[in-house]
């Protein structure tokens, strides 16, 4: 996406130390999260219950797990809106594998591998055929969902073995779910990868200025390829979790999730132009969306109002931070 921008966009952000901008953005988000947590606890007597909070976490962990590699991709200046459809395709193939009588390990492996392959296909379209990523993934958005419908039609696949339910419904200890632990672990992994390794530095560089990066000797296409593939793999993983939680597959599974996931990433402070953002912000944004939607539904606020609030939150936070001059939000003039 950033490849359409002029080359000379990246001079201003060097003015402040990077960590300071990072801190400010995250502090803003963390404060909103805390405020909403207190608001929920105050307004609903049911909110502060470990099991209620645990149930609430199921509403966002799967999306948040896909949001982690999505953040990498958007930082690298690309986008993928086919992840919801990728999840549906993975789920359908897993359902077929389970229906053929195979056990849970093979079913899980299938889901992840299909996701990986779907991601690789997106990557080939973008890096080899030079299709702009938004166009390529609009195509695969329809394509993957279409294949899922072609395989199952109006049927349902639910031949999963009982132990498959653990991934989406199991608890590691007390009310701490497997999904939550997995998300926590992956968030740390991605934070280290993006902020603590040379790979992460190069991803920022690619998003900030792909041409300069290539000139500087970074294999831009190779990086983009592997980020797309990783994103596909994680969509496959999320598909395993969601399918396990639902205990069944229909081709309409995860419909519209791509936008929920991208909302999390943008709200998390990742610049849609690429080159800026942090994993911590994405984690906080996921938490915020989860808390806001669950808190409102505890008050039985209709879903229509809920989506207005989520949309309003996104616009308000992004616009406000732009006005206040938080990092990653100014467009260069």
């Amino acid at each position: 996406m950033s490849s359409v921008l002029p080359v000379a966009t990246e001079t201003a952000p060097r003015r402040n130390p990077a960590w300071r901008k990072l801190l400010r953005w995250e502090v803003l988000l963390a404060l909103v999260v805390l405020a909403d947590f207190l608001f929920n606890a105050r307004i609903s007597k049911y909110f502060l219950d470990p099991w209620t909070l645990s149930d609430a976490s199921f509403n966002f962990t799967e999306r948040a797990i896909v949001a982690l590699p999505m953040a990498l991709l958007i930082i690298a200046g690309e986008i993928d809106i086919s992840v919801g459809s990728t999840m549906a395709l993975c789920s359908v193939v897993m359902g077929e594998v389970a229906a053929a009588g195979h056990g849970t390990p093979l079913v899980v492996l299938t889901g992840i591998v299909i996701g990986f392959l779907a991601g690789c296909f997106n990557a080939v379209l973008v890096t080899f055929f030079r299709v702009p990523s938004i166009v390529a993934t609009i195509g695969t958005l329809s394509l993957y969902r279409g294949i899922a419908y072609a395989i199952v039609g109006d049927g349902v696949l639910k031949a999963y073995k009982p132990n498959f339910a653990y991934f989406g419904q199991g608890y590691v200890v007390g009310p701490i779910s497997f999904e939550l632990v997995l998300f926590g672990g992956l968030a740390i992994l991605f934070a280290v990868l993006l902020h603590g390794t040379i790979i992460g530095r190069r991803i920022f560089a690619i998003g900030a200025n792909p041409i300069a990066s290539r000139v500087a000797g970074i294999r831009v296409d190779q990086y983009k390829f592997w980020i797309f593939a990783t994103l596909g793999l994680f969509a496959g993983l999320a598909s395993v979790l969601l399918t396990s939680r639902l205990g069944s597959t229909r081709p309409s599974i995860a419909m519209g999730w791509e936008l929920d996931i991208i909302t999390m990433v943008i709200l998390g402070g990742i610049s849609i132009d690429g080159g800026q953002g942090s994993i911590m912000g994405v984690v906080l944004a996921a938490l915020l969306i989860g808390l806001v939607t669950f808190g409102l539904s505890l008050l039985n606020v209709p879903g229509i109002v809920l989506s207005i609030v989520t949309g309003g939150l996104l616009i308000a936070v992004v616009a406000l931070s732009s006005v206040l001059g938080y990092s990653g939000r100014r467009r260069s003039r």
Partner: protein
Amino acid sequence: MDRRTLLKTGAMMAAAATLPAAISSRARAAGTIRVGLVAKSLGNGFFVAVDKGANEAAKALGDVQVIFTGPTTTTAEGQIEVIQALIAQHVDAIAISANDPDALVPVCKRALARGIKVISYDSAVSPEGRIVHLAPSSDELIGKALNKLAAAALPDGKGKIALVSATPTSTNQNAWIAVMKGDLPNYPGLDLVSITYGNDLADDSYREATALLQKYPDLKVIVSPSSVGIVASAKAVEDAKKVGQVYVTGLGLPSECAGHVMAGSIKSFAIWNPIDLGYATIEVAVDLVRGAKGPGSSLPAGRMGSIAFDDKGVGAMAVPFTYDKSNVEQFAKVF
């Protein structure tokens, strides 16, 4: 083995955590019974009418509070989030019109495990996930009624008909279509040429209906077993200036169809009374909260008489009612 013990401990802790809740809900049962009424999606006139009937029952019963809720889009994931919020509020009963009979089972089982009476109405949840299902009518009666309506719309009982259904995964629509197909031999004049899906969305249904009109120029009747689809199809027929040539029929709300009946694109259509359905749903849910057994018994439902549930827990409320020019205006004021 290790994981199993962990799971067991988890389940026990869950039970321990819900114990005080169970006590408090029992205490509340003496006061107010709270029933979560979950729609397929909000902004659908049908469920607004269901809510109206539900509140009528709540008022009649006196100590019942109805919490009407639902997702914005007709997805199972959205309904799961709504049901989780209801579980967290420790409601006494949850009544659901399911977007997906299977995907809701795990969350419904969780609600049942925490002592909440879960029933489905209108569109069923699979038997593992609910105590009883209250069908507005039986699939058999509705499917046959749809063929009857289609035949009635044809001038001489002969011609091509096509369907504009909801989503390919809609439980009830698929059951009715299956009955329709099985019953077609009784109507040798009816020629079913196509089944399309408008996803219960106005613009998708309109597009499907318009496509049908273009694809089959000699099409005589469009049948839509969806309250969204029938209106969109009627609009498509009117916009294509084919009123009098093509008739639309199916299941719809009188208030939404009245204009099209007057315009001539709809001759007659049918629907059970969603107000009655909401009313009966709350009556049945409250019966269960008060300790009634579900499957295999007959439950009292106020002014709707008593509803018999078979061994699988399925009960049918009534036969669908046909509306035409003579009575649609009168019912349009109701729902």
